[in-house]
């Protein structure tokens, strides 16, 4: 089953290269089948507990091992479903937006990389996935044409640098312990200078790739430059890959002392990201940059939750972390698709373009607002669930008023940038006229993930329980 999830996108990508005419159809097909399989995987895992397979029949240690616990299966489901959605969106708009033919195989490769990443529990395999992910992402960014070259190049260089750092760390660990499988490594782990150095190197690399503050500077330019479906994929999924590895490292490998030392730094980074990213999102005049900065800010929640989890070891924070990841992925996909659709239709990339959008493109605007509600954390959205878990954890921990205050402030900040757009959309004075009649299907596609993130609440209790237990 897991193998199917890996093979299908690879096969699809190859076929697409051979037979470019049916590439859109193939992408859709792959994503759809993978989604079904992922759904089955989720139900299997929730029934039988985590599954583990070794590729090609080699014994443990030599073979590539794949492990699917409930978190991984959820993330896979998320990946495939979003892939399907974005592919649908791309199919609906690729003629209009002149999306390059490279999009189809590249997005399949991206899916492959991500799926493999969620399943791998081996530092080197993870590196490979990371690299695949990075290359595919850079290539996707560059699809936009000339104007995207500079940010794409920037992204490429930084991504390579990050990978290098990570690889260096892996090499150091391999030299010291001789194993790369995480569970095996965790058994032998010692908190010494070498392991610390390796951890720091890997962390830096991963933070760079995940665009965690203060290493986020490449992200807004790259995400804003990419075509709308690509930005949706990048913001929703790609940055979560390195984050996942980061969590693996610190939660499963690092010793308590190391974790404790690092925890406040993560919390600080998270808060700073929330605050500064929020302010930047609030002040930027460009529409897609606003959403991109919002990604920087929202990743701060995850970082903050990670920091708190390391500090207090309270399972609620684990739940908060992964809920943030899930909710943000859905919400941000919706945001990017909606904003992309609106800027494409209304012609212009500044936020002012969206003036009066509530009349001209009510559906897309509604999608943005609904997704924005989750970013703010309004009940009963997925974002609210995550925030609720975070707040519960903090209140149970007691005496964390500073964090609580900070959360209030950043929530308001996120509300400010979301409603900045919404208020602009309600401006009836001089609405911007669309360049052509707005298309309905892409707008609905943008609305779907936004509704999905609110529908998360229907499963809030199992989700919370699951993530609390298996937050890595």
């Amino acid at each position, binding site marked *: 089953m897991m193998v199917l999830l890996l093979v299908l996108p690879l096969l699809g990508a190859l076929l697409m290269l051979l037979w470019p005419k049916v590439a859109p159809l193939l992408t859709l097909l792959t994503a759809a089948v993978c989604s079904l399989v992922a759904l089955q995987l989720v139900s299997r895992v929730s029934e039988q507990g985590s599954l583990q397979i070794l590729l090609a029949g080699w014994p443990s240690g030599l073979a590539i091992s794949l492990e699917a616990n409930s978190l991984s299966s959820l993330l896979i489901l998320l990946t495939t479903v979003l892939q399907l959605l974005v592919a649908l969106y791309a199919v609906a708009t690729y003629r209009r937006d002149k999306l390059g033919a490279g999009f189809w195989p590249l997005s399949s490769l991206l899916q492959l990389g991500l799926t493999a990443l969620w399943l791998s529990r081996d530092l080197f395999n993870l590196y490979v996935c990371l690299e695949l992910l990075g290359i595919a992402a850079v290539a996707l960014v560059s699809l936009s044409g000339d104007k995207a070259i500079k940010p794409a190049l920037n992204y490429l260089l930084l991504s390579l640098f990050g990978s290098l750092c990570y690889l260096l760390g892996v090499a150091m660990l391999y030299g010291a312990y001789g194993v790369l499988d995480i569970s095996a490594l965790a058994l032998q782990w010692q908190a010494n200078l070498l392991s610390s150095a390796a951890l720091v190197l890997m962390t830096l690399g991963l933070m760079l790739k995940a665009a965690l503050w203060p290493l986020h500077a490449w992200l807004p330019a790259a995400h804003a430059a990419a075509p709308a479906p690509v930005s949706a994929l990048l913001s929703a999924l790609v940055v979560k890959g390195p984050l996942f590895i980061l969590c693996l490292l610190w939660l499963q490998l690092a010793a308590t002392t190391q974790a404790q030392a690092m925890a406040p730094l993560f919390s600080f980074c998270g808060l700073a990201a929330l605050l500064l990213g929020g302010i930047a999102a609030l002040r930027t005049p460009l529409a897609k940059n606003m959403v991109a900065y919002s990604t920087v800010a929202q990743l701060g929640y995850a970082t903050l939750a990670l920091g708190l989890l390391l500090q207090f070891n309270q399972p609620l924070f684990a739940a908060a972390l992964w809920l943030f990841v899930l909710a943000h992925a859905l919400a941000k996909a919706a945001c990017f698709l909606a904003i992309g659709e609106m800027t494409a239709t209304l012609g212009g990339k500044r936020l002012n373009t969206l003036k009066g959008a509530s*009349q001209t493109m009510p559906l897309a605007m509604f999608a943005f607002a609904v997704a924005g509600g989750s970013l703010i954390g*309004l*009940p*009963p959205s997925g974002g609210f669930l995550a925030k*609720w878990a975070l707040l519960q954890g903090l209140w149970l921990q007691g005496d964390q008023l500073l964090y609580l205050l900070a959360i209030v402030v950043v*929530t*308001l900040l996120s509300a400010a940038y979301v409603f900045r757009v919404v208020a602009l959309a309600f401006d009836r004075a001089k609405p911007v006229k669309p360049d052509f009649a707005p298309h309905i299907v892409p707008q609905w596609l943008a609305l779907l993930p936004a509704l999905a993130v609110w529908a998360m609440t229907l499963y809030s*209790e199992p989700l919370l329980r699951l993530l609390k237990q298996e937050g890595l």
Partner: protein
Amino acid sequence: MSPFWQQYLPLAIILSSLLPGLIIFTLKETQVKLRISLNLLGVSIKLVLVLLMWQAVKAGQQFYFSLPFLPGADLVLQGDALSLLFVVLSSVLWLATTIYAIGYLEHSPLRSRFFGYFSLCVSATVGLALAGNLVTFLLFYELLTLATFPLVVHRGTAESLAAGRKYLAYTLSGGVILMLGVALLHSLVQSPLFTPGGYVAAVLSGNEGLLMLAFALMITGLGVKAALLPLHGWLPQAMVAPAPVSALLHAVAVVKAGAFGIIRLVYDVFGVESMYALQLAQPLMLLAAATILYGSWRALAQQDIKRRLAYSTISQVSYITLGVAMLGPLAAVGGLVHLVHQGVMKITLFFCAGNFAETLGIHKIRELNGVGRRMPITAMAFTLGALGMIGVPPTAGFISKWYLGLGAAEVEQPWLILVFALSGLMNAAYFLPVIYRMWFLPQSGPWPAEQRLSNRFETHWMLLFPVIFTAILLVLMGVFAGTELSPLSWAQLIVEREFRHD
């Protein structure tokens, strides 16, 4: 009533306005008849359902519907006497406002959107009334914010956008703070059902500080919508919204949601004994009293009709808070009954202000001279509403003031009577000159922007009938306060149930 109904009636009441609202969003501007029929259908179904529920609750039945949500806090809808008070109020006034809005917005653009959000707003209000625990309440509280924002900015002018931003800034901050408080309380006792007498008593010892903090946070969050003193800034600005929206905002939806939340918090979450034990009532009382006086004082200087009404709302809503904070049964009756009475009176006043603006283009008080001759029915309704606000018998306002006063004497806080007296004086000082202008002064110059909306009546019948309806209602509620059907006896029933638990 069968168990099926007992479970699904609360949900059906919410859906009866939610579904038409969602359908209306998808309608085209030209499908006027379909839209109006949908709207009225929703209203009638809701009224019938509410009536059913009202009778059942009166007979002592309970309604309960739940969905799993957070651990320890399901999404619960329940129908008890207190929620019915608010549900009936909002359903009845929704009827009036819908008709009014249809008349008011005739020939204006974007009506589908308006009515869609309008229905959402009422659904959120009703949901808030039926919410069975704090988390559910919080949920509808935030939804209400979201549903009302498009209504506030509906005109889409720079002024209304500024008001909308301010509204959001206040209400969202309030919402976040409320969420913080709810989360804190949840971490202490989870979020059980609202119970008469409260449920925090069990964890009272040892957690005094945290409970007080939670109370303060939640009151701050609710106080934004209830326009308590330092948090009232959005209300006077939000009056740039179209008249039916202001009417709904001031009478039923937003402001009342805050006040209703405070009632729930004090009686059904903390309970009278815990309130005493934590000494939380006195500060709330002081705050409410200060708001009453401040609102009245600021209303005096306003020259714009709707602005004056808005400040008056700030003052009047705090009567409810004050009645609740006094923690005596009679004061509670006064506060609860004022929830209804103020709603009806204020909606009348806002309807009238809207009629003046729509028919004659009057926005300022000084333009009202002699309007009593041109629009006698509206002016009469305004007069009745204003007299009610002052508390002149036999209007509804008198009844609530009377009970609040009795309550103040009962809990031995006679200085509160002074507050009522002063506020009454100021109410008279800002309403009587308006009445004087309408009736006793001759018309000065032509009306700013007169339209002939009807050949038979002084204005469009859809603008006129809701006004007549609410004006008659407010007199009837005062005159027949002693009957079984009156809000007063319902409030007494609630208080009996709330205070009987021990």
